[in-house]
Structures are given as structure tokens and as C-alpha cells.
């Protein structure tokens, strides 16, 4: 049986008989907001609904103004406050004072505050920041269902300009039914998009990955999608001189630094024999002449596996660490190259308690696992303003 909306297809109406009206942006955004809220209410499309001011939106907006400016351990927050807890700075909250990489993010991040809901999952995309290579998003999720302490969010990012991307995600419960999260996406393409980025962020479900989660409340599908465009942060590039070292046929070169108001990106490349591609792992010690030590996060890399002729794979990767102390004159970076078996070691214990050590597998013949500290590379920052 058809309904009115289907019958509307059958009537020939002449759209030209209607005059378009002038529209101002303000009224349009008010209507759009109302529509979004209408959708979020997940209710059925019966008559007009009185517009209700969303508490969530107000809370999120307030949270953004409350950016935390004090450094120190962790962050005080009302973990189980009566109402929705307000996480002033999701970046720092999730970092938990561990690396400090994200300490400055909230200050420069752009407020997005889009709310969408489907199937009982309400997602507020709070903030976004794009440093020219990596997009970081923070979000707050509200749901009546319990997804455990650290659920998994099934999300996807679409960016036209990128040929590939790598990502990480961090989602944590802050009170019953409320989660805050951060996702980082690093994009790879021939040319960097350093002015702006427009992306579509879609969520297709949320999963309780705790042991003991029953099958039925494990995964809840939903269909949410956010389209956002963000300007990239300003940046200054620093070239790195005398930037190479080599250990065990693995050559590392530090190519450049990109200094943004919130963080520092180190671009480096490695040239590795094909057979060792999966075995190489880098560790970095980064400090400045004032004694500050910078912890970092890896963002993955891209490269091409070499052909038979060269037998070498060349990769360019990026690590991110926090903004360099403005008073520092020199940055000192010491790479350590590790060769690690792709399948790690381990122990099996049989019924009688006999332990059998796994042999290290994965390293090609004639290659031993180990660590090689490379030479320290000094980067002169005196020219950087």
C-alpha cells in the first residue's frame, strides 16, 4: 500500500510556478541545526516537533571554551559527575600525561561540534586539527548501551587527495554511557595537501571488545557520516644537514622537520634491503640543548618495495612529537635501528611444566636480531623564529 509520499511522485507539479526566496546564512544554519536535531531524535517523522535545545551541544560548546592551560600530570575532571562529564581537552585526557605530544592541540584545534545519531549511538565530532599530514579528531559518544571500558569504533575516513592512509584510534569510557575518543589519520600522496583538507568521516558501528561481552551486545551497527573541511596549520620547514647514517645495510636519513604551532613532524626515510623490510624498527631519542626530552608517536610511512635489480626498499615515514621548546637552539636526534624477527619469541608450557622456547623466526639467514645506535644528528634551530 502506497502512502502520500509515494503518491507525490505521480503528480505532475510544475516547479517553475514557485518563486525562490532569498535566504540568509543565519536562517539556513538555524534550520540545518534543527534538522540535525530532528534526525538525532531518531523519532518517527510525524508532525512538526518543537525545537528542543540540545543539552549535549551546550555541554560540548562549554567544554571547548574550557581549554586547559596548565601543564602537569594528567588532568582533573569529574569522572563520574552527575551530568555528562565535560572533558575540557580530550587530546590531553586520552594522552593521560604520558607523552605530552597533544598538550597544545586543543588550543589550535578547530571546533566542529557536529552531532549525529543513529541506532542509539550519538556521536559529537568535537574538534579537528590538521597539521598538513595528520588529521586528528576528537569526539564524544553517548549511548544507553554499555560497550565496556575501551570499545572499538568502526570508522572510516575518505579524503580525495590521499592515495593511502594510516590511522590509530583511542576510545575510552569516562562515565556510564559516555565515551571520548581521538583518531589520527595520516595521509599519503604524491603531493602533500598543506592548505586544507576536506574529508568525510563515517562510523559504521561500535563494538564491545571486552572479554565476556555477550554476542548480542558486542557490536551495534550505525550509520553516521560527517563531512568537514579544515584549514591546515601554518608550518615552518627546517632542512636537516649531515643527516645520514647506516647500520647493517640499513640507511637512515632525516629529511626535514615541519614545525607547526602544536607539534613537530620529523620526516625520515629508510633504505632497507628487501628481505629486511619487515624486520626493521626505529627508535628515536629526541632532546634539545636545554635538556627537554620529547616523546613521539609514529604515524606510519609509505614507500616502494624495490625490484630485483636494486633489491632495496625505500620508505618515507613520519613521527610526531610535541612542539619544540621555543628557547631551544639545537635539537638532537639519535636514531636506533632495530632488527626484530617478524614473528616474536615466546614460550610454550606443556602439561608437565616443560617450557619450550620458540625459536625466533622471520629473520633471514645470516641476520641476527639486535639494536644499533646511530650517530646523533644535530639540527640547528637558531634560524627558526
Amino acid at each position, binding site marked *: 500500500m*502506497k502512502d502520500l509520499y509515494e503518491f507525490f511522485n505521480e503528480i*505532475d507539479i510544475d516547479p517553475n510556478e514557485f518563486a525562490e526566496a532569498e535566504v540568509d546564512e543565519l536562517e539556513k544554519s538555524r534550520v*540545518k541545526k534543527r534538522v540535525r536535531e530532528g534526525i538525532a531524535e531518531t523519532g518517527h*517523522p*510525524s508532525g512538526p516537533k518543537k525545537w528542543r535545545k540540545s543539552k549535549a551541544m551546550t555541554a560540548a560548546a562549554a567544554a571547548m571554551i574550557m581549554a586547559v592551560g596548565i601543564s602537569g600530570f594528567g588532568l582533573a575532571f569529574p569522572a563520574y559527575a552527575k551530568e555528562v562529564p565535560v572533558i575540557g581537552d580530550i587530546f590531553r585526557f586520552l594522552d593521560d600525561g604520558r607523552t605530552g605530544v597533544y598538550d597544545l592541540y586543543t588550543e589550535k584545534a578547530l571546533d566542529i561540534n557536529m552531532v549525529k545519531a543513529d541506532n542509539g549511538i550519538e556521536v559529537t565530532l568535537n574538534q579537528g586539527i590538521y597539521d598538513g599530514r595528520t588529521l586528528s579528531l576528537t569526539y564524544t559518544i553517548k549511548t544507553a548501551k554499555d560497550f565496556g571500558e575501551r570499545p572499538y569504533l568502526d570508522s572510516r575516513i575518505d579524503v580525495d587527495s590521499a592515495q593511502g592512509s594510516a590511522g590509530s584510534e583511542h576510545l575510552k569510557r569516562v562515565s556510564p554511557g559516555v565515551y571520548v575518543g581521538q583518531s589520527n589519520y595520516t595521509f599519503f600522496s604524491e603531493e602533500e595537501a598543506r592548505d586544507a583538507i576536506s574529508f568525510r568521516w563515517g562510523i559504521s558501528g561500535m563494538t564491545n571488545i571486552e572479554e565476556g561481552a555477550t554476542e548480542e551486545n558486542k557490536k551495534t551497527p550505525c550509520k553516521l557520516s560527517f563531512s568537514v573541511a579544515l584549514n591546515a596549520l601554518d608550518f615552518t620547514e627546517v632542512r636537516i644537514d649531515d643527516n645520514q647514517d647506516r647500520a647493517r645495510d640499513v640507511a637512515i636519513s632525516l629529511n626535514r622537520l615541519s614545525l607547526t604551532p602544536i607539534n613537530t613532524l620529523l620526516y625520515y626515510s629508510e633504505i632497507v634491503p628487501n628481505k629486511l623490510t619487515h624486520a626493521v624498527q626505529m627508535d628515536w631519542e629526541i632532546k634539545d640543548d636545554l635538556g627537554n626530552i620529547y616523546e613521539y608517536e609514529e604515524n606510519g610511512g609509505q614507500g616502494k618495495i624495490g625490484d630485483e635489480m636494486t633489491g632495496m626498499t625505500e620508505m618515507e615515514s613520519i613521527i610526531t612529537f610535541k612542539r619544540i621548546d621555543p628557547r631551544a637552539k639545537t635539537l638532537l636526534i639519535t636514531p636506533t635501528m632495530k632488527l626484530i624477527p617478524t614473528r616474536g619469541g615466546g614460550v610454550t608450557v606443556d602439561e608437565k611444566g616443560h617450557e619450550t622456547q620458540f625459536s625466533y623466526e622471520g629473520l633471514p639467514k645470516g641476520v641476527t636480531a639486535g639494536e644499533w645506535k646511530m650517530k646523533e644528528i644535530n639540527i640547528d634551530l637558531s634560524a627558526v623564529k
Partner: protein
Amino acid sequence: MKNNNDYIRRLKNKEEDALEFIMDKYFPLVKGIVSHVLLPIGSQELVEECISDVFLAVWHHAEKFKGDGEEDFRKWLCAIAKYKAIDFYRRERKCVEIPSSDREGIDLFPSQASAEEQVLFKENTREMRKLLNSFSATDRNIFIMKFFWDMPSEEISRKLGLTKSAVDNRIYRSKKQLVKGVMSLGEGGN
């Protein structure tokens, strides 16, 4: 932009950015239709509420759009906008005005407006669907134009190439059927 071509498909797919796109594109048209109808009430707030209701309806009923391409979609959207605007207008006036130009001779309703109102203005009730489905295509089109779009008989007759009296006749029959339907459904159900 990718969006441009397949926003209708993506709307049906429940992708919200397609709706965003549609709102940007058709806002002036929808506003034109809605504000024209609601002009006498003179409330900007009501106009905005109605516009958002139109887009919400587009969102919720997207899968019922059966047309092909942008032109059909535009027509479908106009139909919804017109219907919603009239609906809002009537609600605001707190009474159901049976289109009055031809009230003489079809004085069926005044006392029964509330029974009829129940059905007519709950677009999605099973009863309404039943009635609409029971009409012939022409009767149904006339009925929708008359009751949901509040079009005068003259205009309907021009549109459909019928004489005005033919249109009036059909309206009369539909109304009778409607009242009968309401009555019998009222007795049978609940």
C-alpha cells in the same frame, strides 16, 4: 565535488551529507513555497520550523522517492513543501478549513471536522493510506491537490484538463467516500 551527481542515491542511503547538500541547494525553493503559504501568519519562527520539517520529511521518506533524476526530485520536493506548508498553516489556525471556494452544496463537514481531521492530517495513518489507495489515480491526484495542497478547483481543472464541474464532482464523491471511510473505520477500529 563528488556529491553533485549522486546526492539522491546517497540520500536514500541515509548519508547525512547528502541531506546537507540538498538543504544548500534547495533552501531558496523550499523557503519560497513555505513562506508564501505561511505569509498571513507572519512568523519567521514558524517558517523555519516548517522548512526544517520539509527536509526532515525528505530524509525520513527518501526511499519513497521513485522518480529519476534531479528534475523529478525537485518536483517531489515541491510536493512535500507545499503539503507541509498547508499543514502548518492549518495547525496554526487551529481549525481545519475545508477548502471553501466550493463549500456551497457540499456542506458535509462542519460538524464532523474533527473526525475527518483525525484522518486527514495524520498523513501516515493506515486509514489515510487505505483511502488514498482506494481512489482512482485521477481522483487521488485531485484529492491531494485539493486537500493537501489547498489548490482551488479552477487551478486543478486547468492542470488536469478537466472542466471545473468535473473536478468538483469528483471532489464531492471523494469527500463522501472519505467521510464514509472515517466513519466505518472509526466504528471498526479502536
